[in-house]
């Protein structure tokens, strides 16, 4: 069983150029991160490319991971989401006609059974705080987070002015933060 400490130590070895440590991290986290890439890109081959990106670029950037700030798996999950969003943006630029909805068809909620690598980081808390938000703030933040939408894309999808989408998100974020810090 891989522990959080094992992962954090492996991240430091990657930064020192240890190929075996990269493989260790791959074995421990690739399923989790592939799920994230798949959810964000909504496309299997794109998700595979994104996952490849994640570990190739991890080889050069693992040194940026700061164990004092986040757990390794949490950092990696965010890293994977960001890489997947990069791919998504590049594709949308190339193919502006691709319907945004295409990315939204993968189900949001899945059993958490094997996916609790982030446990111990106030998981329940951010979920609870997000649930407490009213619509449309809650849905706007969820859509931005899980579908990787920009303000402009969110406004287009909801058919509202840009300023409206922005104020939904900002109001939601302020309440979310207040709830998390309460």
């Amino acid at each position: 069983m891989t522990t959080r400490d094992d992962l954090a130590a492996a991240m430091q070895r990657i930064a020192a150029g240890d190929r075996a440590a990269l493989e260790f991290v791959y074995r421990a986290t690739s399923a989790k991160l592939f799920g994230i890439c798949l959810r964000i890109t909504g496309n299997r081959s794109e998700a595979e490319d994104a996952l490849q990106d994640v570990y190739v670029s991890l080889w050069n950037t693992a040194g940026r991971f700061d164990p004092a700030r986040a757990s390794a798996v949490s950092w990696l999950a965010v890293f994977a989401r960001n890489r997947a969003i990069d791919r998504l943006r590049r594709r949308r630029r190339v193919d502006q006609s691709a319907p945004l909805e295409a990315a939204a068809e993968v189900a949001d909620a899945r059993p958490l059974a094997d996916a609790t690598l982030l446990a111990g980081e106030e998981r329940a808390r951010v979920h609870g705080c997000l649930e407490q938000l009213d619509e449309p703030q809650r849905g706007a933040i969820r859509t931005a987070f899980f579908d990787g939408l920009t303000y402009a894309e969110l406004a287009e999808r909801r058919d509202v002015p840009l300023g409206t989408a922005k104020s939904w998100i900002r109001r939601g974020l302020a309440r979310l933060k207040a709830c998390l810090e309460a």
Partner: protein
Amino acid sequence: MTEHDFLAAELALGLLEGEELLAARGLLASDPAFAALVADWEARLAPLLDEIGPETPPANLWSRVLTQLDTPPTADAEVIALRQNVRRWQWTAGLSALAASLLAILTLPPLFAPKPPPAVPLVAVFTLPSTQARLGVTYLPERGDLLVSAVGLAGDGVHDHELWLVPPDGKTISLGIVTPDQARRVRLRADLAAQLRNGATLALTREPLGGSQGRPAGPVVATTKFFST
């Protein structure tokens, strides 16, 4: 929440695009306090990723990763990778190794001879004495654009702040007047852009309204250096 906190959350969520995104990324690279806000938001939101269940990637994906790590990258990426190596050698073996590695770059096969311009953005930040304001300068080599963010900088109505490049020969080159409290974007002339590189010195001076041509007339307010992100 402060404006920077909102911006950090928006960057973490991926909501920004265009100039807002570029300005936020410049801030991220140049302002540790802002970078900490972004990291905080990423950490706050990360647990949501637990909603996404694991999926088994194809069996050959690990070998694809290995193959890419072992494939000589394209010329562009190669130069960046070499630069990283130079940095590593610098740390481990001191100056003589650095000299050797520079030699290695110079003696690369001709495939890489026409050295492409740096593909990574350059970032500089001025910390202004006696104010809270910071001036962020981001250079985007792909487009030759210079992004100057002077948010929080107030004009006094009598002076302009002017941005200068200070090449090794000391002959200052004006990069333009800084617009107080605004993020401004300018396209640099190619010959000017060619002089921007990691470690290049920038100076900020206080000039009469309208700025000075050729060389600064007013006092130097602050200096800083570009670093690559």
